[in-house]
């Protein structure tokens, strides 16, 4: 067993959390990506323990792992002191010393503890005072005392503590469990009136969220940001993705596009993040050779960004539809679906040539001066009460453009249907 203890002296303030428990819960969820055995102590100062012995090989050794964790904490913006020891209590003790905070074996631990002052021991105040008044100053001197006499004088708890400190006795602690849904929130001391000011706290929330997703080895398709206002119901900003993702940078980019468009009803006092549904991470992330898969992933990033900024239905793909009426012979299709579907161009070959541009609304025009081709009669639609009876022609406009026009047989009027371009 190799325990990492992280001392977080300013956690509650730095996390902008409502209370210390929220703050350390968020950090525990983040830390779960590095170790399956996480536990914490809430009272001051907050301590977070991770068991690294089982996971150090996965992350390339304890040095690389420790560097990764410290870099992560720095990125999140928490002041922290890390220490490594074979027992959780020794790791907690070593977070209080100035240097040489990493020891790996019990023998090393004993040597390391020997010169440290007695006051670092996590024993009751009167026990420490009694030891002090007996003339003991260093931890080494206490460890050298016969166990039986210590037990007689201070009770068996002191002995148990010392044996746990040295890693000689079991020190079971409750393993923290990942919650099934993710909820995090932070409160600002002030009111933010501008959505760009939200990006800084949001970035941290998203980084913690990314840690949670990595720890669970899952990804999300949608999550919600909750902007809390004073005397105003919170506004929810739902962020959806095309493909399961778990990268904080990607989330932040989408959130920025969404927030860019939002007009705040009132200043923001708090920010929450909520994710209720999780899916398996997209296998494309690990695909080394598949350029098609990579391309699809890049496209999905683009689609997400466009939808976040422009609105979901502004980004479309097209599909033909079996209908003789030109304005009904096509439909929008969501791009993500039609990427997977293949279109058969042969379906369209029975039709006469059609123009590439279609007028969205029919425009009534004057009878064209010059008709180049036609008529092509289209009579259809009696079954759905939009019966059409039209003669289509290719017409030449004054400026040389080729128009696709028709004469409505019902009223004899001319309309522009499209342009040959």
């Amino acid at each position, binding site marked *: 067993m190799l325990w990492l203890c992280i001392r977080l002296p300013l956690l509650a303030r730095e996390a902008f959390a409502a209370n210390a428990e929220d703050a350390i819960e968020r950090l525990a969820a983040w830390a779960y990506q590095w170790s399956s055995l996480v536990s914490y102590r809430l009272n001051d100062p907050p301590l977070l323990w991770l068991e690294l012995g089982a996971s150090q090989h996965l992350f390339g050794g304890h040095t690389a792992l420790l560097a990764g964790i410290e870099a992560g904490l720095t990125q999140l913006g928490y002041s922290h002191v890390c220490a490594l020891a074979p027992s959780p209590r020794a790791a907690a003790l070593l977070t209080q010393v100035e240097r040489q905070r990493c020891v790996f074996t019990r023998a090393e631990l004993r040597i390391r503890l020997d010169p440290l002052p007695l006051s670092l021991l996590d024993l009751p105040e009167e026990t420490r005072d009694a030891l002090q008044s007996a003339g003991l100053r260093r931890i080494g001197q206490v460890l050298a005392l016969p166990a039986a006499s210590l037990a007689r004088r201070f009770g068996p708890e002191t002995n148990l503590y010392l044996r746990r400190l040295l890693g000689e006795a079991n020190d079971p602690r409750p393993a923290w469990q990942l919650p099934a849904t993710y909820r995090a929130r932070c409160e600002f001391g002030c009111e933010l009136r501008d959505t760009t000011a939200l990006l800084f706290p949001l970035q941290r929330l998203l980084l913690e969220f990314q840690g949670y997703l990595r720890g669970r080895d899952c990804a999300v398709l949608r999550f919600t940001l909750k902007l809390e206002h004073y005397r105003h119901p919170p506004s929810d900003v739902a962020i959806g993705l095309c493909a399961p993702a778990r990268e904080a940078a990607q989330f932040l980019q989408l959130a920025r596009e969404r927030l860019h468009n939002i007009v705040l009803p009132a200043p923001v006092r708090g920010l929450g993040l909520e994710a209720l549904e999780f899916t398996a991470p997209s296998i494309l992330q690990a695909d080394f050779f598949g350029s098609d898969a990579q391309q699809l992933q890049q496209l999905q990033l*683009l689609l997400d960004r466009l939808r976040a900024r422009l609105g979901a239905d*502004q*980004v479309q793909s097209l599909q033909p539809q079996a209908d003789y009426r030109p304005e009904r*012979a096509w439909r929008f299709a969501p791009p993500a679906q039609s990427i997977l579907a293949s*279109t058969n161009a042969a379906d369209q070959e029975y039709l006469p*040539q059609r*123009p*590439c541009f279609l*007028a*969205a609304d029919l425009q009534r025009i004057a009878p064209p001066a010059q008709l180049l081709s036609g008529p092509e009669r289209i009579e259809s639609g009696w079954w759905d009460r939009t019966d059409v009876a039209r003669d289509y022609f290719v017409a030449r406009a004054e400026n040389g453009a080729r128009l696709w026009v028709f004469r409505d047989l019902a009223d004899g009027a001319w309309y522009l249907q499209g342009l040959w371009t």
Partner: protein
Amino acid sequence: MKTLPPTLEQLAQLCRNGAWNREVKPALPSGFAELDANLPGGGWNYGAIAELMSDAIGIGELGLLIPALSSLARAGRYIAWIAPPYLPYAPALAQRSLPLNRMLLIRTNTLQQSLWATEQALRCPAVGAVLSWPTCIIDKNVRRLQLAAEAGDSLGFLYRPPEAALEPSPAALRLRLHAPSDDIACDGLIIEIQKSRGGRAGVRLQCATRLTWNARTGH
């Protein structure tokens, strides 16, 4: 094997590119031999913006791009249409062998959104070509799009009104498109190369970029 001596045409092209050994980037053939012969690299250049200033909509200005778009889309890259003035008509695109599942139609409300969407699409490596119809833009915007096209190595086509030809622009290629004056007798798009980076400007040529109808024969 004996190599053939360079033709006069090839020599002229080498001279225009400044040096014998300057590498000409491969370009995407436009599908029109007359145009390819006059473009550096023999086609549309990747990572560059081309401005198309058409006198009117419906003279064959879209047909100019269709063969190139078709080959891009068939190679698996996506084509983004940003704020086109009319709706791209799905059956017609399918008839002209454009795979519809590679088309992305992006509608926008403002010019700013159009420019932003154009830039995002140009930067995306999955997108092969971006066709954009911005209402009115200035050279600063074009420069930005040019940089985005370089970053994404994609083809950018900006459809601009004919008045834009009077202003300078940082686009790599600028073409003016006219309908022929007697377009019944000879139906083809007249292309005037106004600017061509690494190529020759001032060329006027004609390409049959749209379907032809003859008033006498019907089809």
